[in-house]
């Protein structure tokens, strides 16, 4: 293992490459491009023995990996934002066919208006698709998570696709020291993909056929059941990874100074790093604050979150997404964790950073102040008063 100062996208591409995918297909879209460009380079110079298929849209890219995966090939794709939305039809198909495709969803805002900067509205839109969704905090984790993703997806008791979500630009385009894993080590961690069911003339099968009211519901029941089973597998794979590589970035969740905290901030993705700095700062002043990182968003680890947070008085959920017509998404799932439990903390939700709006240290301080002050509520934070007509 060697530490390299490297761009996030390139670190991810290199980890995907040593995972030995047979087929990669993609369509360019900012800020995903560097990942797939680097993979096409590795294929072109012979370092990676894979088929790299340039297609005419994300809908086709997802369809190509669906087809390849059905033949028993290990497959990978990556996209973001509009491309992700265009893929969604096929994403549901991939999950429904129980194909262990791995993809990167680089997180970016969605149109209209066009905006290429980071938030998490794209991947959150597909939370009900049957894909396991993991969110990375930094580039080391984003890189490592891809290796874990293949192992989780291809587990014969799981056989569901896995999406690694990483914040666009904030992670993909920033340079960090990352420990890259060698081919030899990967081969020890990730065995070759040997599916039980795949397309072969020796034993003809049909994928995705018509199923009527007599059987459709059971397909959903089984995916839901598998999602629950995958909670254990995700934790186990993170533990295996820890054993072999000495790094642990959390299993389903990760916590920082939560044990004795009275106020905890909950979030996903790269914002966690900023929050940790603020926690250290406030701890130095004697304030009992902590952070909970949701690493696995689907399946949603209700029990782990309850176990970690049942002692706290106040929770602030910070999210870069919104369910228009409802409000915060993650905040309401965190609230549901406490439903029917003896004690419910005060839970406040904050929608911030949409379309790349800066999330500064001040923004986060403000969420803490509001949480301490107000009763449970949800609000947008960091709005430009001049644009909304002031108050």
């Amino acid at each position, binding site marked *: 293992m060697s530490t390299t100062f490297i761009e996030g996208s390139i670190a991810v591409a290199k980890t995907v490459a040593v995972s030995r995918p047979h087929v990669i297909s993609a369509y*360019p879209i*900012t800020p995903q*491009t560097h990942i797939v*460009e680097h993979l*096409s380079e590795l294929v*072109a110079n012979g370092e990676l023995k894979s088929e*790299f298929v*340039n297609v*005419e*849209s994300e809908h086709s890219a997802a369809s190509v990996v669906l087809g390849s995966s059905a033949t028993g090939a290990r497959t990978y794709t990556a996209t973001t934002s509009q491309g992700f939305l265009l893929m969604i039809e096929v994403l549901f198909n991939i999950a429904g066919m129980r194909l262990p495709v791995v993809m990167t969803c680089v997180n970016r805002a969605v149109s209209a208006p066009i905006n290429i900067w980071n938030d998490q509205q794209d991947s959150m839109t597909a939370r009900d698709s049957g894909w396991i969704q993991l969110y990375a905090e930094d580039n080391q984790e984003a890189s490592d998570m891809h290796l874990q993703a293949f192992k989780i997806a291809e587990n014969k008791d799981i056989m569901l696709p896995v999406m690694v979500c990483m914040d666009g630009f904030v992670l993909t385009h920033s340079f960090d020291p990352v420990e890259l894993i060698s081919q030899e080590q990967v081969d020890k961690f990730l065995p070759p993909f040997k599916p039980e069911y795949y397309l072969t003339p020796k034993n003809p099968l049909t994928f995705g056929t018509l199923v009527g009211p007599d059987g459709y519901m059971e397909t959903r029941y089984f995916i839901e059941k598998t999602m629950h089973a995958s909670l254990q597998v995700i934790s186990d794979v993170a533990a295996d990874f820890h054993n072999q590589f000495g790094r642990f970035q959390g299993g389903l969740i990760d916590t920082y100074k939560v044990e004795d905290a009275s106020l905890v901030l909950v979030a996903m993705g790269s914002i966690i790093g900023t929050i940790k700095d603020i926690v250290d700062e406030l701890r130095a002043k004697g304030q009992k604050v902590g952070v909970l990182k949701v690493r696995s968003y689907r399946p949603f680890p209700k029990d782990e979150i309850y176990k970690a947070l049942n002692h706290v008085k106040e929770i602030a959920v910070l999210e870069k997404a919104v369910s228009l017509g409802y409000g915060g998404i993650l905040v309401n799932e965190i609230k549901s964790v406490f439903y029917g439990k003896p004690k419910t903390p005060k839970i406040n939700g904050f929608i911030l950073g949409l379309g790349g709006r800066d999330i500064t240290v001040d923004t986060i301080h403000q969420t803490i102040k509001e949480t301490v002050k107000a009763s449970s509520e949800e609000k947008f934070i960091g709005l430009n008063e001049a644009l909304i007509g002031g108050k």
Partner: protein
Amino acid sequence: MNNDTNFKRYLKLDLLPTPWCPGCGNGIVLKTICQAFDELDLPKNGTVVVSGIGCAGRSAGFFDLDSVHTAHGRAIPVAEGIKYANDALNVVVVSGDGDLIGIGGNHLFQAIRRNTNITVICYANEIYAMTGGQVSPITPHNTKTLTTPNGNPDRPADIQFLFKSNNCFFARTTAYHLNHMRKCIVEALKFKGFSFVEARTMCIVNYGRRLGYKNSNEMLLHYKEFYKINDYAEALAENEIGIIKSAPRSSDGFPSA
């Protein structure tokens, strides 16, 4: 040489300069479209511009006309929707080759089938420019791009034959052949039915310089040397530009041939 500046009435001059790179050919196409509008005296309150996404697509915002920026690849069906809602409007699509022929390719084929009376101007720079220089459906065979580092293994699409299938209008021209480009756009706008102009133009930053062109002028000179005008031919050879001959339509609108 036409020194008439009347075409400027179709542009939002206060938004200039455009965000395009120095040497980009898109400005030439934008200006020529406006000159064609001016030649036909298209009414500003009766003309709509629709674009997809890309460097070329951004030109929609510079017209001093109503415009819609659609999702990537969807300019043609959106334009058709506008035309079917209000037949009195002149509806013009401006977008890139990746947008119109790649991700939106099926719409192109279906609009030809329906022969919708709109005009499409394709800024054909042979590359996905806005995203940094990846292979497009008309990138030549063996050409190196960021996603074909060993050269494009695929053949470029030659879409002229699609238009033949329903006797629609197709022209190919280049940013070097200014009078020709203007003529092609004027005829396309006058055409009653679906019309398409493939305007070859230079992306120096994310394409030309990687192919060894020192500046965009060298790319223009390549157009000058490589392309020969062959108007009203049955078909265009690889090195020909021109308007494809279309058979007259019978009274029911179907090709009479």
